[in-house]
């Protein structure tokens, strides 16, 4: 099948150990990088065209070029992975932590970071142990610390555990959290931590998967990476497939080369639905994204293709909802998530998320009225005026305007289902 970049080693026995990594070409990219000029590494990354894998899909090379040149500047790896149904970083940190570390060190060298952090989701207990062991091994091996491999380049890498708050995946909240504070997203401008970030210093925040691609890019060149995929969607991507599908899992695919249908139905990928069922909806890119119907199954898994169709590739997750599952219930559960995870700074997000959840719950259990649907849409409109995509914002971060996506999608696509809940005073589906 397609080239494997980030999952090339994940199936090896003891894939997380330094010895396995070294046997399979590990840390050669770092050695190569340290012999290059930092700006040449940056040029390779720009040439690769890699888009950030954290959700926003911002070009990594461009982000790096915006970093202010202060002798003190930081690199922070975002391993908070909490977007529901996203579990690709989970695989990468447990199965190939050295790849992540190597990518981080190359990037730190390329941008001249004075210190690097990996912020890892607190609930990844095994991941924390694997990454910490790998860091320890890498220090002992001379890949981190003073004068790495005799190159004259020094840097420290610290693993920071999170403690259970989805919002800390948002890069400015992550920075606050890393500073030992409540994970409140910072108000923009400045729009990028590259100007003012951790401890007020210029900071680059990149996702685990983004970092994990860097060693391959350095080994094989940016061009080789860019030759995979199409358009702005270069390289491969890890797609996390879940929900009503026979073989949920992480699948690394060349970007834009396959469609949602391929991912869900290919025997070696999702292997289709359960017998006798059909696709009712798919949620691409995490629960913040608007839903697609079966008519979008043939859309290629590419950044711009999905955006053009009115949703987003986001974190690369794909949830399948089949015709035996309740759309109202799924949308309610998603609003419940946002309600629990809103940081609470912005009035519309803090209060709106709870209100919407309550109405959705009422409808799901059969206590809703028809006018609730208009109310829901209007409350959503007060959070994200216009209910357009990408949404307009009344809040500090984009968690707020993500709340309406699933509610509005569900009402638009399955109004009948809502009405049945209301008329029959309960959920028509068996759970």
């Amino acid at each position, binding site marked *: 099948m397609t080239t494997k970049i980030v999952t090339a080693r994940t199936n090896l026995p003891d894939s997380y150990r330094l010895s396995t990594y070294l046997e399979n070409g590990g840390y050669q990219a770092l050695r190569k990088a340290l012999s290059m000029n930092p700006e040449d590494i940056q040029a390779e990354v720009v040439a690769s065209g890699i888009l950030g894998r954290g959700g926003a899909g911002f070009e990594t090379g461009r982000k790096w070029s915006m970093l202010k040149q202060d002798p003190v500047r930081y690199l922070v790896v975002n391993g908070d992975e909490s977007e529901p149904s996203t579990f690709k970083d989970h695989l990468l940190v447990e199965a190939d932590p050295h790849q992540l570390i190597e990518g981080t060190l190359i990037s730190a060298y390329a941008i001249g970071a004075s210190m690097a952090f990996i912020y890892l989701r607190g609930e990844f207990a095994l991941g924390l142990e694997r990454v910490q062991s790998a860091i320890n091994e890498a220090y002992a091996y001379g890949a981190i610390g003073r004068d790495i491999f005799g190159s004259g380049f020094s840097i420290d890498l610290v693993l920071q555990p999170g403690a259970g708050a989805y919002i800390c995946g948002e890069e400015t909240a992550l920075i606050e959290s890393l500073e030992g504070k409540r994970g409140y997203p910072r108000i923009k401008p400045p729009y990028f931590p590259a100007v003012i970030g951790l401890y007020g210093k210029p900071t680059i925040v990149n996702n685990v998967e983004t970092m994990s691609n860097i060693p391959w890019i350095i080994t094989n060149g940016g061009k080789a990476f860019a030759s995979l995929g199409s358009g702005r969607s270069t390289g491969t991507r890890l797609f996390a497939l879940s929900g009503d599908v026979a073989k949920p899992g992480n699948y690394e695919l060349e970007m834009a080369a396959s469609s949602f249908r391929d991912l869900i139905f290919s025997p070696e990928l999702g292997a289709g639905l359960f017998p006798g069922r059909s696709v009712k909806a798919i949620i691409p890119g995490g629960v913040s994204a608007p839903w697609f119907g079966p008519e979008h199954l043939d859309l290629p898994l590419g950044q711009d293709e999905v955006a053009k169709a009115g949703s987003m590739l986001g974190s690369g997750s794909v949830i399948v909802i089949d015709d035996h599952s309740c759309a109202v219930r799924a949308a309610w559960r998603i609003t419940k998530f946002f309600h629990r995870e809103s940081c*609470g700074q912005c009035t519309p997000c803090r*209060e709106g998320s709870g209100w919407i959840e309550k109405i959705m719950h009422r409808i799901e259990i059969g206590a809703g009225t028809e006018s609730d649907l208009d109310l829901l849409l209007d409350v959503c409109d007060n959070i994200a005026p216009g209910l357009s995509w990408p949404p307009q914002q009344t809040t500090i971060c984009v968690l707020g305007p993500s709340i309406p996506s699933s509610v509005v999608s569900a009402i638009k696509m399955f109004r009948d289902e809502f009405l049945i809940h209301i008329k029959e005073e309960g959920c028509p589906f068996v759970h």
Partner: protein
Amino acid sequence: MSTDVSKDLISISIDGREVKARPGELLIAAAEEAGIFIPRFCYHPRLPQVGMCRMCLVEVSGPRGFSLQPSCYVPVSDGMDVITDSEKVKKAQDGVLEFLLINHPLDCPVCDKGGECPLQDQTLAYGPGESRFAEEKRHFEKPIAISELVFLDRERCIQCDRCTRFADVVAGDALIEFIGRGDNTQVNVFPERPFSSYFSGNTVQICPVGALTAAPYRFKSRPWDLAQVESSCITCSMGCRIMVQSSQNQVIRYIGLDSDQVNHGWLCDKGRFGHESLSSPDRVTAPLIRKGDSYVETSWANAISIISSKISGIKEKIGSDRIGFIIGSKLTNEDIYAWVKLAKGVIGTDSVDSQLGDGISADVISRLNRATINDAVTSKVVLSFTGDIKEEIPVLYLRLREAVKNGNTKVITIATHSSSLDGISEIQVFPSLDQLRPLAQQITADSSYFPEVSSLIKSSGVSADGEGLVVLLGRENLAWDQTVVEAFALELARVAPKAKFLVTLHGSNFSGGVDLGAVPRFLPGRSSLSDPSAGLRQKWSRFPSHNGKSVKEMFKSALKGEMDLLFLIGSDPRTDFVDTTLSNTALDEIGFVVSVDTFMSESSSRADLVLPAAAFAEKYGTITNLEERIMTVNQKVTPPGLCRPDWEIACEIALEIGSDLGFSSPEEILGEISNISSLHWGLSFDRLSRLSALDGVVIPLTSTPLTLKKKPMFDQISTPGIASVWNQGLASSKTSFIDSSASISDESDSPTESKVPTAISVEPIWPLPPIPGTSEMPLVYCRRLYSQGQLLKNSPHLSRLAVEPRCRISSETARAIGVAVGESVRLTDKAGGAGVFEVEIDDGIREGWVEMVKGMSSSQSFSPIRVDETMNYVKLERV
């Protein structure tokens, strides 16, 4: 503030109107200045912006067209196009208000904030008008006390972060925090750690809803029943601007007003809640004459005639020298002047003093180059040689803390003990007595004693002659004689003549006392006895023939039987004089003591005659704060019973002994003051009541033109009830608003330079006596905000915060004498007085030193200060 910036202004368009704004100014402020009010909750102009409530959303043009932006966070930029009244903006604001209300209890009928609530007001103006929320609201236990002074109702909280931001950023007391996440977020304290900040009342004032309420105000009144008047707080020498609010002739609440020069809207809790003392049942409300061990009420006429015959009798028999006056620090300038004129200009005694051994002599003060508060917070270096200002002048501490945090100035402290300034100072030095002189002498040179001090001073850009240096000068340690401070100051002023001094004595109107002759050897306006000003010669018929006595000297004379009559005007030397052994024995020896006071204090309750004085808010006049700013204090309520303003009592006595003081109102007194004192030239109530001068004016006025501008309402939503005053006028003030744009320079009689008389010379007393080789321990004697005293005793809520006198020593010292925290020690003073105190360990105290707090409860006979000692020592033993 008044620099002309019009040429740097940029243009923006708000709702199609062209508006001028300062570059970098926040959109919400620029709009407000242009008369366009954008609703808001979290925005507070004195706090860093957080943009959390999202109430202030407006449409702002950008590269991708108009988008909703928080106007409290977006700075203006040239050509910016802003829409504040579109359908989209209205819908967003409507939405935010609806969201805020869904979890709000709507218990307005029983909420203190009802009627002055920005949430109510803005709901009316911008809100949806009906509720679509049919679900269960969030619930919390209804109000919980988070301190003795503050209640918290978390159901009402709208999470604007104002209180928490204030506590953390401004006060530096991060004792309240957001707890929880999302709509479960609540403000709270750490379990069992109350919100014991000196500044907690400010959070109540800036809370936009009734989430934080003040214990002393709870359920006392409705805002529409409050009448109010602007005034100045007289709890300490800062003179914070306040609004005094009353209901049914009772003062109910103070609100901090925002003055750029003085308090930035903040108050300390002692100032804010001290109004409870005004309605204390222990007020003296009728003249009382002593009969044996008790008092009987008498008439004013009788009381005045007794005084008059005492004065006449003494004057005829022995001369006016044996009559003395001790003037308290809470009197108005007009009160002080009237009593000084009675004493010096009618009776002819110069024995008038207003400092109780805790001051700095007028000779020294008047020789110093004075700094304003704003000078201090913008100076290159602040050198602090004063008591803990957080304890003594709390809001000055806030101003200085802010300046340091913003990098505007650096602080060096000279101290014998740790203080709250340590947290914001770059360097702390603990010089011995001998080191003080070289320290002063080498302050801008290379000091061999404290090289880090002079090097910081130099590297910060202070010039060799002291330009850029402001000294906070007060009484760092009351156990060191005032001559120590004076010698240091004079020496420093000599080597660094451009250095400025902010005299940080605690007594509220100490400046008025010094400037108006309530000190021996000076006449009002700082004229010397021998050389009265032309004005004085015209207005006064006589002058004392020779120098009078200070309080200390009066008491010493009393011990020799040489004081026959002493007036205590709002002064309680039995508790407040530093050497209470001396004051108590001396007062017992004086033939006749008249106390004019608001309460029965230790001193008045043993006086021969007690006259009831009108208190703060019961009279009007002016005060002079520590930076020589003259500000008005205004009357809000009528005095209880037979209480009369102090100045009026002086007039009555003068009349009775056959002399008319020549005035019959504070206006006339201030008129006379401005006539006889070049320092006070140009002052009048009329001028002070101009909108521009409501925050007072620093004297001496100069002929520099001041641009007078209407003062903006600073934090529109946290000065409850005040907006209306601009429309109504000051209901019961003697003064009224004159909205004038005239500049002060239009007066033709302005003096070209101030004619402040040069002070009588005092020679520094170097070398200072060496530390005696004794087993006794050097003492630090200092003030605490909640030291026991009249105000605290008579304010029920504050009295719960009174600090027990404790003996504080370092852990080393404790180990050396074998005591532990919570155990007791016996302290013995020079006179053999002793007290037993609990030990508190504080490693900010030097090894072998002992710290005691001034204001002991009266049960202790211990009185550690001997006025003639340069340094005081105590003996310490474990019990």
